[in-house]
Each structure stands twice: as C-alpha cells, then as structure tokens.
C-alpha cells in the first residue's frame, strides 16, 4: 500500500491540474465552470468540493486496481491455487465508514445550499421582478413593476437581485443561464417556479432552453444583458415610448395587417407573440440569428439581413415554430418591414 506522503505527492499535482482544467474552462458568458454571478459561484463551489472528494475516491480505486492487476496477474506456467479468503471484517468497516464520512462532508454544504438557493425574493422591494413565460420556441419577459413586456432579451441592472417567476404557455421548457445560475423548469399551468440570481458584472450572458420541447429545442436561445443602473432606468423609459409605424403607407398597411395581429410594437398590436419594441437593438433575431456587422458563422448577419432571412422563411431557421406559413408578403413588403424593424432601436446605454 502507498504510504501517506506518496499519496499526497501524487494527489497534489492532480488536484492542481484539475483546478486549472476546471477553473477557466469555457466562455465566460456561457460556462458553468466560469461563474459570473453569486448563484453560479455558489453552485460551482459545491461542484469543486464534490469533484475533489470524488477525485480522491477515483484515485484510490484506480491505484488499487492497477496494483492488483499487475501484481497478481497469472505468470506463465503458474498453476497454484491461491489462498481462498472469505473476507475481512475490519476492511468492510473501513470502506463503509470512510465513504459515509466523505458523504457527510459533501452533504452538509449541499443541504445548506439547497435552502439558501430556495430563498423567495418575490416580495423583496429591492429585487427586480421578472415573469418568464416560455413558449415554443421563444422566451417572454414581463416586468410587472414597470408594466413592460419584452421578448428574447432580459435587460437587468447589474448587481441587483432578479427574482424570477416562471411558467410555460405550452410544453415544459427550462430556463438556464449557465454563467449566472442553475436552471429552473417552466411548467404549464399552476406549477409556477421561482428562482433568483444576479449579475454583478455588466455584459451579455447566453441563455439556453434546457428541456426537450420540440424540434427547435436546441435553437431556443435567449440573452440576459446586465447593464449599469442608469442604463437600466433609461431602458425602462425608452421601451415605454410610443413607437411610430413604418413611414411608407404600403409597408405600414402590410405590417399592421400581417404582423400586428400577433406581435406588438409600443401600444399597438397583439400580446400573444414576441414583442417587437426595440428589436433593432437586440443581440439576435429569433433567438438564434446573431446580429453582428462582422458575420463569421452561418447563423450570423447584420440586423437587417437577419430580420429579412427570418421573416422570409422562419421554418428554415427554426423548424416547427408557429410563425411559419402564417402570412404572405411581397418582396417589397418584406424588405420594407425588415428595414423598419432594424431601425426600431432603443437608446439606453
């Protein structure tokens, strides 16, 4: 058997390597291993504790296994019958009690964290309340304290606790922003769920749907954008400003009849589908077509190009979504509406 200093000598560099591997693994706007907020940090801390304990177990089992299969392999011509050992009471106790102790070391912080992370901030006056409603295949964000409804991008003030209450309008989805917090399922009807998180650092964090919800489950991305509190206040004001319809009457007519029956801009239009106010400022169109002036990947393009592509054929972008085949647009109307929407920006930063 290895003595203690040998074990330590082998253990320490492995621990160091593992911490290094885990420490900054992945994008800081997406990875659970690169937490950017206190909730994700608490969860990562628990992960590190668990990995350390479990690595110890794995190392011991691997070391014993390798030792045994090398030391006791049958040599050529060896036909001896080894001594038949029934068992060893002391060993049984050791490898029962030590695992129990390890589990207590893991279990106590686990239970503490379970209760810590279940705190309900829905009545906290300092918290920003956001009602998250999940749909096939988009995310609706309502801010009841401000009377705001938006979609796909949740703007939040940096450092403030965000109290989320989530439910689904159709099938089960799951609300997950890995860099900021673990996920919570959004269930249909009365099984509403609550969670909280905060984002002390400003930036855009990637959100993912994490429950199989249909063909476009993997394309149901959303964003959480943390801005300083002055910018947040400006956003709250800007999004509630009245919004003009397209200047061209033909485009405006098409927009009103074919789009506003489902969508809303400003105070016009329907509530059941993504709110388009400020869509020109969002990070993506349809959650998945990323807006950038320097497109690198096939899902990236300028705001105008992304809008055009999406409105022209939503089914090609997100199979199974409810906008497919819902309307007919001429090329003129399509270009006009895409142009109009790309100019619907909000100045707040």
């Amino acid at each position, binding site marked *: 058997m290895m003595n203690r200093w040998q074990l330590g000598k082998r253990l320490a560099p492995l621990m160091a390597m593992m911490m290094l591997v885990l420490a900054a693994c992945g994008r800081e706007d997406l990875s659970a*291993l690169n937490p950017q907020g206190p909730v994700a940090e608490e969860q990562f801390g*628990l992960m590190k504790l668990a990995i350390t304990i479990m690595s110890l*177990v794995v190392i011991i089992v691997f070391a014993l296994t390798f030792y045994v*299969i090398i030391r006791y392999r049958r040599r050529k011509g060896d036909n001896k019958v080894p*001594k038949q050992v029934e068992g060893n009471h002391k060993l049984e106790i050791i490898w029962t009690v030590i695992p129990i102790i390890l589990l207590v070391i893991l279990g106590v912080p686990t239970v503490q964290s379970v209760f810590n992370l279940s705190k309900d901030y829905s009545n906290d006056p300092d918290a920003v309340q956001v009602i998250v409603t999940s749909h096939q295949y988009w995310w609706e964000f309502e801010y009841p304290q401000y009377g705001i409804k938006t979609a796909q991008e949740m703007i939040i003030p940096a450092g403030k606790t965000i109290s989320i209450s989530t439910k689904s309008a159709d*099938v089960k989805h799951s609300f997950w922003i890995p860099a900021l917090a*673990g*996920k919570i399922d959004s269930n249909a009807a009365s099984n509403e769920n609550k969670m909280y998180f905060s984002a002390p650092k400003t930036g855009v964090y990637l959100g993912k749907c994490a*429950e199989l919800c249909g063909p476009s489950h993997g394309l149901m991305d959303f964003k959480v954008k943390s801005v300083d509190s002055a910018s947040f206040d400006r956003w709250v004001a800007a999004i509630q400003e009245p919004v003009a319809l397209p200047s061209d009457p033909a485009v405006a007519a098409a927009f009103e009849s074919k789009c506003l029956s489902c969508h809303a801009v400003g105070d016009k239009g329907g509530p059941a589908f993504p709110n388009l106010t400020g869509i020109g400022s969002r990070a993506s169109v349809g959650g998945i077509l990323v807006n950038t002036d320097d497109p690198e990947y*096939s899902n990236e393009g300028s705001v105008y190009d992304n809008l055009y592509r999406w409105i022209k054929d939503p089914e090609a972008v997100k199979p199974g979504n409810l906008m497919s085949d819902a309307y007919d647009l001429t090329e003129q109307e399509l270009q006009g509406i895409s142009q109009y929407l790309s100019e619907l920006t909000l100045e707040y930063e």
Partner: protein
Amino acid sequence: MSHTHTVKRYSGLMDWLTTVDHKKIGILYLLAGGFFFLVGGLEALLIRVQLWKPLNDFVGADTYNELITMHGTTMIFLAAMPLLFALMNAVIPLQIGARDVAFPFLNSLGFWTFFFGGVLLNISWFTGGAPDAGWTSYVPLAGTTYSANHGVDYYVLGLQIAGIGTLIGGINFLATIINMRAPGMTFMRMPMFTWAIFITSALILFAFPALTVGLVALMFDRIFSANFFNPSGGGNMVLWEHIFWIFGHPEVYILILPAFGIISEVISTFSRKRLFGYSSMVFATMLIGFLGFMVWAHHMFTTGLGPIANALFSIATMLIAVPTGIKIFNWIFTMWGGSIKFTSANLFAVGFIPTFVMGGVTGVMLAAAPADFQYHDSYFVVAHFHYVIVGGLVFGIFAGLHYWWPKMFGRILNETLGKWTFWTFFIGFHMTFFVQHFLGLMGMPRRIWTYLDGLGFNEMNLISTIGAVLMGVGTILFLLNAISASFKPKNAGNDPWEDGRTLEWTIPSPAPEYNFKQTPLVRGYDAFWKEKMDGHKGMTPAEPIGPIHMPSPSILPFFMSIGLFIAGFGFMYARNWGHIGPLNTGYTVAVIGLLITLGCMALRSIKDDHGFHIEVHELDDKGGKA
C-alpha cells in the same frame, strides 16, 4: 411409469416458436436483444454524425428528436433488458441445479410479448413517425396537443406490451430462485449472480407496475381524451414525472444489478479465488435495491418540488454510493492475492471497475441538488448515465456473453477477436463520453439537434463522434466473432475455463435438454469448487437416475403476443380508421386482438397439459445437443 400419449416434439422453426425451454428462450432473447442493440447503435451513430460539427443538417430537427427517443427507448427496453434476460435464462436454472424455471410457459410468453412490443415500437419508423418526446416522454409535449401524430402512441403501446414480458420474467425468476434450488443450496450458498437476479426480480416486481400505471394513464389521455396530465381538465403534468421516475429509477438498478452479479462471477473465476466478503456483497446488493426506490426525485430537482424534497432526495441519492463502494472494494480484494487470467471476459470485467466508478462518482456529484441545477439536462448527465449504463451494464453483458458463451453454444468465442473487441470498444467508449462531461459544464444542453459555432463545443463533439465510430467497430468485431464461432465444432467440454466454481460448469456444454441427469447435492458456497478442492471430479447426486419430467412446448404464447400486437394497432388508429357500419373499425380490431389473446388463455386453462417424460434410455442421447 408408462406413457401412452404421444410426445409432441417439434423441429426447425416450429421448435423455436413453441419452445418453453429456458436455454432456447435465452438464445431467442440474445438474438432479439442483439438485433435491437444494433438498431439502437445505428440510431446512436446517426445522432453522433449529426453532431460532429456545428449547425449540421445531416438529419432534420424532427428526425433528430425521433432518433434520440428511439435510441434511448430501444437500448434500455429492447436491447439491455433482453440481453440480461438472455443471460438470466441461460444461467440461473443451471446455477441453482434446476431443470428449468418455475413457469416455463410464462417464460415463453415473456419473450414473445417483449418481441412483439419491440416490433410494434419500431414499426413507427415506417408509418408516419417514431415517437419524438424523449425516452422519458414528458407531458405536455407527449400529449395529443403537441404530439398529434401516432409516434407517442407507438411508444405507449409498444412499451406496455413489452413491459408485460419483463414483469412476467421477474415473477418467474423470483419463484424459480425461491423454490427450485438444489438440495443443500441455502440462500447464503447461492452464487452471487443468482443473488443479483433474485434482487433484480424483486425490483422488477415492484417497479414495472408503476410504468404500467403511467402508460395506461398516458394512453387514456391520448386515446380516450382523459385528463390525468392535462391541467385544464384538472390534471397535473408533474404527475407524469413522478410516476415515470418511480419506475425509472429502480429500472436503472434493474439494469445494473445483474451486471454486478456477472462481474462477481467472472472476477472470482478468473482470479481463482472465492468472492471476497460474500455476505457484505449480498447485504450491499439488497441495500442498493431498497434505496433504489427512495431516490426517484433526483431526476426532478429542477422541477420545483421545493427545498425540503430536494434536500431529502439529495441525501438519499448520496447514500447509495456507500453499498456500491463496498462492492467495488470487495471485487478489488477478490483479485488481491489471486492468480488473474486476462481472458476477454475478464478484460471486460476488470475494465468495468474503473469505468463504473467514474460513472458512480459523477452520480454523487449529480446528487447535490444545487450543483444539479447546472448539470441537469446538459451533456454532463448524458456522460454520467452512459458511463454507468455502457461502462457498467454493457461491459458486464460483454463479460457475461464471453464467459457463458460455451455453456450456451458449446463453443468458446475467439480470444484474439475478443481482445480486439474489448480494446476498440473500451477506448471508443471513453473517447465518446469523457469529453461530454465538459461539454455539459460548458453550457451544452442535451437533446439538442445542433449547436452554434464559436461556443467551444466543436472539437469535443468531433472527438465524441470518432469514439462512437470506434465503438461501432468493436460491436462489429463481436458480431464477427459470434458468427465465425458458429462454424466451429461444439466441443467446449463441461468446464472450458477449467476454473469453474458453480454448478453450470458440472454439466456438458451446451447443456443437455434436461440440464442435470441427476439433481446435484450442494455442500457449500461455490459448490463445484468445493468438490474440486476435495478431490472429486463432479457433484454428488441428490437423487437416483430416473425419467425426467419436462414441460410441453406450446404455440399459445406466440399467438397471445400477436393478439396484443393487433390490439395495439386497433387502439392507436381508432381515431383514423373510420367505421364499418355502426362499429368503430379501430376498436373492433382491438377487440379482435384481445379476443385472440383471451382465447389462447382460455385454451391454456381448459386443456390439461401433463408435460412429457424423457426416459432413462434417452438421457444419454440428449447429451451435447442444444
């Protein structure tokens, strides 16, 4: 005793359709389970090809969801469980010194219902869409509103029929192990594989009815417009999750406990040592089985059950690590001081130990609910369960197949091919699934048809796909091995490994139709080894030679299963097939199917079947034939 009635004996195809012999049924399970393993493996390869690069469109999003659903469902219900039943059938009666299972007719029924349930489920590929709501089939997605085509109906009815087979098997093996052990074989002298199957059968008995209940409720919601899971009708969608996982968690212990049993046998035999800590192993297995029913909601940590539930289920789940760890250390210490021979069977058994431990420790990580809020529904979970199911169960099955192949078929599988199978499959496996731990932690959810470029997922997905191809190569090598072995002569001998410790190695390979010419007398644990160490060539018989009573073959189980198969179609298509006169066509077909099944059951109950006898002079003729 003289018998004037003619003895019904079939040959060829009819022999296999009517057999109630556990050895033949074991081979049927092996063939069908092996076939479905290939189907599930093909589905896996298609999934991995779709994921090898970002924004790929090798398959459409709809098809992808069908592939992941069918891969999981097929592998768990139609491949893993039947392959385990193959080994259970082939080995248990031999290990306890019995001539067959307690209920041979039911044994056959169990096979045919599984087979037709599996066929029904896979026909969905050809009739407008396979189920696509995941193997867990969560509602509301699996309800008629969001899954309007018949895919989920095939899932519900296919699994319902196949599940009957499993429940039957569980009951059968419980009765067999309790009642039919050879004289002298007390419970604490049973081989560890027998103990594992005994406890697994108890788990099946209690877990499968939960699945039955869930599937009935989902069937009624979908086909008869019930509202069990429909909130607007007073139902609750989270209820499905509870019912499914109360079955689903014990199900994974049903999958792994037999593998644990196999590992105990193989490691012990090829180390030339008795199992270290036998009574601890028995106790630990019982504890795992019991605790397996206490942890189902760890699949639901993010569902919103509240902190008290999450905390309790976290602790309960972590506790299972203790008896599992006890088993791992006992296997290691079985090898300690032994004389270890690395046959293909033993390579798989020894490869199991570090691999399963890796899967087990990620399980403990998942047990911590707050951390699970990050891991859940990400590739971390996919990595975990493949480590324990493939690295645990499938390695165990490969070990068991290599080990018991000579007893089943009279030929040893080629050792060189076996070693190649092991290394390609083992390396391919770790390549495929180790990187998935990191993918999940870096933000890749599971069950996604594709992923965006630039997120850091590309290289690891490529490695994972290459590993999957390597696993495919390993599987093909095993197939080639099995096929080429079938051309060799059946000359394996009673104890081909020369170190057999248990009763199955005291009789010819393959076992004769009646198993034991004379029921053996068991004088201790590792009954055969004990006789060997005392200088005897074989077992002391516990009875004189005499005519052996055998159960009659029957075609009824085959037709009963066909009846259920037909009924499944009828129920499913009742809403599409219109009417013949005043009768709904679908329900009429369903009733006809059920009448076939009930008619067969009535025939079975009314006809008196006394079986037949193999006479003493025939006993030696039957030796050596499958």
